[in-house]
């Protein structure tokens, strides 16, 4: 399948949903993407929905609540804001606006009803969470929705992992089964419409390892079948190739000659060059080659998805202290923003 161009995949997108297997770097990539877009001059909102405080940890700011907080003010005029959406708060706020509950909200909380509604019916929880995202994507500066300028140029969502993301995004069908009437039902429909539109896209983050790639492939199929657009595949934690291909080729074709070269070079520079050292170095190189071979196969699987891919390097020092900014530079260099 020929890959769609990156520019095409990102054109006109207002909502970037970032997903992947647990632990592959969804939060990191969402943060880097948000930063890249903000550096391009946009007003960008980065949203998390799992109450993990991943955004505040990534940017080294105090825990986020249900009000938006500015994380970065860029010299281009762009801004990155952060928000952590909590289903419980969203439900109370929502009941408040639909039913003018007043103090009864507290009674509901005491009865455990809020916990009940937000935990027992996963669909309800997801409608509330995506509801907040929906609100942000469509928010305008005017007094009513749809009037005035759009407040956010882009919204980046640090979404649930691949195993749950299709269900998360397809709240409408879920909820239509459970809650057949009521305001949640009708809101769910507008949300799904927005999520399925050509202005929303889902980015899949993966590592070059078997299970994350498998999940990426499965999720891409599941999302497409459910009518959601798949944007890019972000290959995270890519290691730089330390041994050039011709050397790896010699390892396979003429191991003895390679061993002799290494032995004599080591002797020349005065490094111990016994069989154990030379054999050990070559064994390490062979293991590296086997790993690269496996990664090549996984690259082929990713390529078969026909989506543009973005590569992010493994940062030896981790993502704290400016690591996300370096990843944002990488994304920009590869044509994002």
């Amino acid at each position, binding site marked *: 399948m020929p890959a769609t161009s990156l520019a095409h995949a990102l054109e006109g997108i207002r909502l970037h949903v970032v997903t992947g297997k*647990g*632990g592959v770097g969804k939060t990191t990539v969402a943060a880097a993407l948000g930063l890249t877009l903000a550096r391009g001059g946009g007003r960008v909102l980065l949203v998390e929905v799992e109450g993990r405080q991943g955004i505040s940890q990534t940017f080294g700011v105090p825990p986020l609540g249900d009000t938006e907080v500015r994380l970065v003010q860029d010299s281009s005029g762009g801004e990155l804001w952060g928000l952590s959406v909590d289903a419980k708060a969203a439900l109370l706020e929502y*009941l408040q606006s639909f*039913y003018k*509950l007043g103090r009864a909200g507290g*009674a*509901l909380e*005491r*009865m*455990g*009803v809020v916990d*009940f*509604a937000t*935990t*027992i019916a*996963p*669909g*309800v929880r997801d409608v509330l969470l995506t509801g907040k995202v929906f609100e942000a994507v469509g928010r305008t500066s005017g007094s009513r929705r749809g009037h005035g300028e759009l407040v956010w140029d882009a919204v980046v969502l640090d979404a649930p992992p691949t195993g*749950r993301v299709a*269900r998360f995004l397809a709240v409408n069908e*879920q909820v239509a*089964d*459970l*809650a*057949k009437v*009521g305001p*949640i*039902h009708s809101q769910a429909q507008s949300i799904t419409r927005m999520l399925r539109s050509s202005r929303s896209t889902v980015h899949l983050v993966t590592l070059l*390892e*078997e299970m994350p790639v*498998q999940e990426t492939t499965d999720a891409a199929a599941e999302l497409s079948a459910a009518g959601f657009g798949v944007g890019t595949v972000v290959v995270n934690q890519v290691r730089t190739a*330390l*041994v*050039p291909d*011709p*050397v790896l080729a*010699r390892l396979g074709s003429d191991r003895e000659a390679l061993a002799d*070269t*290494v032995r004599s*070079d*080591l002797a*020349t*520079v*005065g*490094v*111990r060059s016994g069989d*154990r*050292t030379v*054999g*050990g*170095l*070559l*064994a*390490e*190189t*062979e293991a*590296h080659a*086997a*790993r690269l071979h*496996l990664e090549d196969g996984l690259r082929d699987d990713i390529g078969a998805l026909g989506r543009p891919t973005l590569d992010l390097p493994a940062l030896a020092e981790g993502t704290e202290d400016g690591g996300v900014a370096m990843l944002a530079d990488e994304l920009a260099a590869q044509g994002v923003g």
Partner: protein
Amino acid sequence: MTASARAAKPLDVDALIEDRGVGVVVCCGSGGVGKTTTAAALGVRAAEAGRRVVVLTIDPARRLAQSLGLIELDNTPRPVEGVGAAAGGSLDAMMLDMKRTFDDVVLAHSTPDKAAQILENPFYQAVSSSFAGTQEYMAMERLGQLRAQAERDGTWDLVVVDTPPSRSALDFLDAPKRLGSFLDGRFIRLLAAPAKAGGRASMKLFSFGANLAAHTLSRVLGGQFLADVQTFVAALDTMFGGFRERADVTYALLKEPTTAFVVVAAPERDALREATYFVGRLGAEGMPLAGVVVNRMQVLEAPGLSGARALAAAEAVEDRAEDDLPSATAAVLRLHAALARTAARHEAHVRRFVAAHPGVPLSAVPAAATDIHDLDGLRAVGSALSGT
């Protein structure tokens, strides 16, 4: 065996699997560290030491599942060919199907009509397929069943269980109770009450708060949803003694001296921190810890050459080169230096862990170049586990 692992008390895996007093081994740890791989490797090694083993895996990687002959997800243990027969042992393997396990519980505890009614209930379907904690709950449930079957029929003398992928290893211990108390909880009882008492009349017994709550919920979720919940709870109630109680029974099994926990971690800060929480928790609960497995340690094939010397040598080799062609030797040395850096980082993390947990037996498994996806790979992990 790496230096830091040597400093710790070794986890004697062979003694563990040969100990006939051990009937259940539970492999726990945070996401992606190698729980499934370790569980399968222990299963293979135990079978080849003469135990009759059943291993319960959860979401194994596809190729590993195929090597274990797990082609169908049918929730039933199937024999793994070519493992253990020579030693008089055997290995059966299965993949957990959580929905099926839940359905089986319902079927086993109710009349056919009632069961059909529950299985069709939309609320039941939501809980059994996508509720947070269902996978943990059902993993425990299935463990309880396998253990009971092992005792009853003498089919197996060792049950090895994998635990669900989860950010926190503690979820395996906590999620079933959370789900259990939730389903048995106050609010869900209140909702169920009218259905049990036979109609809306008993609504009068509700406090104002409960009334308001039920009312609001039915407006938000739709009345049908609440009716579904009510039917579900009422049906379950007549069926067996509550979810919480059921979770408690399996939980108690985990405290028996015949159970052994193996905590799996990666040699990284976050995974070892999770392992610390888990080890502490096992201690607090009086649950038997066999030891910690640090998986995917970087080991060096040329340990005599330090990373710093390798880098210096790479530069020296490049300086001497007569042309600008990339030097194979320099590349090989730079790779070694990078591996040495990783190995040193892994060592440092493990050393800290060992220092903080002096009495905890530990074993290190080297990172293989590629995935572990066949029986030979599992055997290699098994021998690394036992330090041989």
